[in-house]
Every structure is written in structure tokens, then in C-alpha cells.
């Protein structure tokens, strides 16, 4: 039901907006939502941190860019190749890495992200190095080119809706419950017969899949990519989106991605002090809403309802 409302809202927004600037902004929010959604499955639900998620974003973008711009593949053929490569690399990385936990897993994934970034930058024969890779063709469905602002908007947000449906179904299934169980107590999850090692690898692959999908869309919508989009700061920004939006909340990914994408746009008026205000906003949110925007706003809503004399729906045991 919520997803249908969401889809309708997207449809109406697409019809109502005409400014190319707004379309571009919303398209980026959509791509960031996909990134945050993938990381939220790993971090929020399974409780495993990744500080190198931009690597999978980059692998998705560069694989499709190289295949389409250098080798003239159709983007629709490059898509499965990009996704497969990202998931395969995720599997190989996760195999030794997810034996680590906490800070150590953070350091490990951080290293992986940096290695990928350096490879992209230095392997200039393929990737164009620092000067970037140009001439990535736009997506096409038959004769229709999806290069207009509105088309990009619909492609990206259609993917986001699909991503939401998939993740929501997962979270409320046997697999999703097992993931949340690992987050709460890995020892008890083991004692319930959950193969925690295998499940952690699977969810790492899922989050890499979503990041690579976001990278694929990004490459074809922007038609030019350069290494800086996939650096360490991007990884941190994705983590921030998840934490600010709300861990273990699918809609939190949308809120977090929206805020982190819009904030720099709004803060232009502070010119030189932009980054200072940006940091302050994040600090204030974390101090007053430590559970993230979704949980925090819901709590405020429930508290105001209680103050108005309406009995709360959440029972306490």
C-alpha cells in the first residue's frame, strides 16, 4: 500500500516538475537512495559496517562505462556484466573480511575501498585515469532515448521503488529475521541454527548489487565519470545517509539520502562557512535524534499524540 502511494507520488512529481535542475537533483537523490538502501541492509539490519561501499558503486559505473564506451556493448548487456562483477568481487572480499567484526571490519572495508579507488585512478588505459571517462551512451529502450531529465528521473525512481519492494519483502521474511537476529546477538543466532558466516556474505553481496546498480544508472545518466565520485568521502557519505536517515529502516534510506543530497544545495548561502554549517546540522541531528530521522520523527509524533490525550498505540510490556 505504502509502495503504491510512493509510486503514485513519483509519477505525479515527474509530471509536475519542469525545471531541469530539479530533475537532476531528484535523480541524484534516487541514486543515493539506492546506495543507502544497500548499505542499510548490511549495516542497519545485519549490523556489519562497510566503509568502502563507494568501491561497488565505482565497479558498477566503470564496468558499464568501459564495456559501452570502449567496446560498444549495449548498456542492457553491460548491466548484467556490471552487476555480476560487483557481486563476484563482493563475494571474494567478504569471504575473508566478514570474519572480522566491529572496528576491524571497518578498517578492512576501508582498505578495500581505497585499493579500488587507486586502481580506477591509475589504470588509465581503461578508465581514463584522473581525466575521467567520456562518451558513455545514454540508456535506450528501442528507439526511445532515455536522456531527458524526466526520463532519467523515471528510470531511477522506478528502480528505487523496485528496490524498496525487494528489500521490504526480504526484511519481513525468514532471511530478514535471521539478519536482524545476527545484529541483536550473533551467539544466539548461531544457537538457532543460522549459518551466520554464509548469511553475512550473502547480504554483503546484496548490498554490492544495489551499489553497482546505482553506479550503472549514474554512468549512463551523467555520461561522464571520474574517480573522485567513488572515493573515500563518498563511502563516508553513504554511511552518513544510513545513520542520519535511520538504521534498519528502509524509508530511513530515502530520508537520509534526501537530506545529505539537498543539504549542500541549501547551504550555498553560507558560502565559505558551508562545510561548518553542514557539520553542525549533522551533529545536532545526531545529538537530538540519535536513532536517526525516521525513528526520531516517529517518536516526536507519538509523544505529541500522547500529549493530546490520545492513547498511544505502542504498548509497553
Amino acid at each position: 500500500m505504502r509502495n503504491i502511494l510512493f509510486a503514485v507520488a513519483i509519477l505525479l512529481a515527474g509530471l509536475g516538475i519542469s525545471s531541469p535542475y530539479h530533475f537532476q537533483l531528484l535523480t541524484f537523490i534516487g541514486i543515493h537512495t539506492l546506495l543507502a538502501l544497500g548499505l542499510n541492509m548490511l549495516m542497519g539490519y545485519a549490523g556489519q559496517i562497510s566503509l568502502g561501499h563507494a568501491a561497488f558503486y565505482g565497479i558498477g559505473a566503470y564496468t558499464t562505462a568501459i564495456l559501452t564506451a570502449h567496446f560498444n556493448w549495449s548498456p542492457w548487456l553491460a548491466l548484467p556484466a556490471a552487476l555480476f562483477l560487483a557481486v563476484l568481487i563482493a563475494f571474494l572480499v567478504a569471504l575473508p573480511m566478514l570474519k572480522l567484526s566491529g572496528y576491524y571490519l571497518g578498517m578492512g572495508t576501508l582498505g578495500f575501498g581505497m585499493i579500488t579507488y587507486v586502481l580506477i585512478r591509475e589504470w588509465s588505459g581503461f578508465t581514463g585515469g584522473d581525466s575521467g571517462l567520456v562518451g558513455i551512451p545514454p540508456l535506450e529502450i528501442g528507439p526511445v532515448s532515455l536522456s531527458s531529465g524526466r526520463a532519467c528521473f523515471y528510470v531511477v525512481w522506478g528502480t528505487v521503488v523496485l528496490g524498496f519492494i525487494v528489500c521490504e519483502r526480504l526484511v519481513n521474511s525468514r532471511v530478514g529475521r535471521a539478519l536482524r537476529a545476527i545484529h541483536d546477538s550473533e551467539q544466539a543466532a548461531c544457537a538457532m541454527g543460522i549459518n551466520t558466516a554464509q548469511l553475512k556474505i550473502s547480504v554483503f553481496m546484496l548490498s554490492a548489487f544495489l551499489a553497482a546498480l546505482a553506479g550503472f544508472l549514474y554512468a549512463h545518466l551523467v555520461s561522464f565519470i571520474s574517480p573522485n565520485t567513488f572515493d573515500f568521502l563518498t563511502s563516508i557519505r553513504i554511511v552518513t545517509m544510513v545513520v542520519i536517515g535511520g538504521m534498519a529502516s528502509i524509508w530511513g534510506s530515502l530520508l537520509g539520502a534526501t537530506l545529505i543530497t539537498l543539504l549542500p544545495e541549501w547551504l550555498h548561502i553560507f558560502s565559505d562557512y558551508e562545510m561548518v554549517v553542514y557539520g553542525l546540522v549533522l551533529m545536532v541531528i545526531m545529538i537530538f535524534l540519535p536513532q536517526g530521522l525516521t525513528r526520531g520523527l516517529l517518536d516526536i509524533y507519538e509523544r505529541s499524540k500522547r500529549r493530546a490525550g490520545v492513547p498511544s498505540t505502542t504498548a509497553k510490556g
Partner: protein
Amino acid sequence: MSDRNAELGSLPPLLRVESVSKAFGGIQALHEVSFEVAPGTIHAVIGPNGAGKTTLFNIITGAYPPDEGGVVYAQQEVRGRKVHELVSLGIARTFQNVELFGNMSVLENVLVGQHVRTRCGFLGAIVRGPWVRREERQMREYSMELLEFVGLDGVADHRSSDLPFGWQRFLEIARALATRPHLLLLDEPASGLNAVETHRLGELLEEIRKRGVTLVLVEHDMSLTMGISDRILVLHQGKKLAEGTPREIQANEAVISAYLGKE
């Protein structure tokens, strides 16, 4: 109770621990401990703190392997098997300090318990076909049955960490039963319970045994242990001090001096 012992004595044991030893650093936690558990019985393991009871549990459930000796469950050597494999073979456990999934509801905790008895994976969950929906419905029905059995069906939708401590213990038992175990290991199930709850626990364990589940419990509460156990194993400083029926243990000189205290 002695009748039951005689009657079950002819069956092969469900669990056989064969001279198991385990050391942590320089500390010998267990030293050549052997015992057998007949199917359909309640077996208690007692001993002062540091006697090696929890170590014994962790070895039986596969949390770590013994340094020496072996564990035979249902006629097969299970030494070196992983925890989650042993759960699917039918060994379940509860924890001394209660390890619930605190952010999940009471019902969801029991649903997770059925993980090894169900099979919906990533693809199944995403497609959510008819068999997945049927499996999910059956899981929920069985979970509610178990919650009713332990008396928690009224709070199925509450967050498990919001429950009073005693109820959390009962929820942990329901969750362990959800794995459909043949052998259930309970680590100090009565600790933290009041007298009424301990009495209710005793009745519950009897009912679980009647359903065909073999029970091994580590316990400090003597009235509970003596009342419901068929056999008792006494550990002292990692060694087996005595083994026998509750009456034999109560009369055992070595046990009285080492554990119950000399008059």
C-alpha cells in the same frame, strides 16, 4: 522414577560424552568427564561455580571442540561439527544470561527459532510465491502454539526486551523448542526466577519431557533439580565427582562434603 530408569536403560543413550577434557590457558576446565543421557529423561548437571558446567554445554553444542575425548549424539560422533549443524541435528540450548533478540518482537524471536526447519531463501522471499506464504503462515501458527505452551501468547507483539526477566526465560525456552530439538540443554533456567516462576518452570520441563524431548540442565536451585531430574551429574573443579539418581546424590559422602557443605 526408578521405574523409568529401568525401562529406558535398554535404549541406546541419546547423548554420550566420552572422557572429555578442555583447558583454557593453564586452567583445566574439564578433566576426563564422561556421562550418558538416556532418551526421554531429565539429566541435571550440578556443581559449584567454575566446576566446568557451562564449558561442558559449550562442547556439547559445538561452540568449541574438546581438547580430548568425544561427543556421540544419536549414535554419531559430532565432535568438530559447527553449532548450526548440530541445531539441525536436533540439539538446542538456552543461555545462562538469556540471549534474546532484544529488538525483535516476542513472536519474531520464536519465528527465528524455526530457521533450520524452514527453507525460504533470498529469492523465495523476494518472489514470495504461494509456498513461501504457506510456509510463513505455518511458522506463525506453530510459533503461537509454542507461545501458548509457555504462557506468552498474550504478549506476542511486544518487544522481547520489554518483557519482565522471568518471562524472557520462558520465551527463550519457547524459542529453543521452535528448533524442534530432540535434546534441549538449559543453562541455569531457574536463575533470576521467583518461587512461583520456578514452580511453573518445573511443570513446564516435565511437559516438555512428556513431548519426547530429552533435557539436560545446569542448575543451582536444589529443590527444582532434586524434584524433576532422573539422574544428576556432579562436577567439581572440572572432574566428575559423582553421578546417580537424586536420592543417591543426596546420600553421597563426597558430594555432601564438596558441594552441599560439611556439617
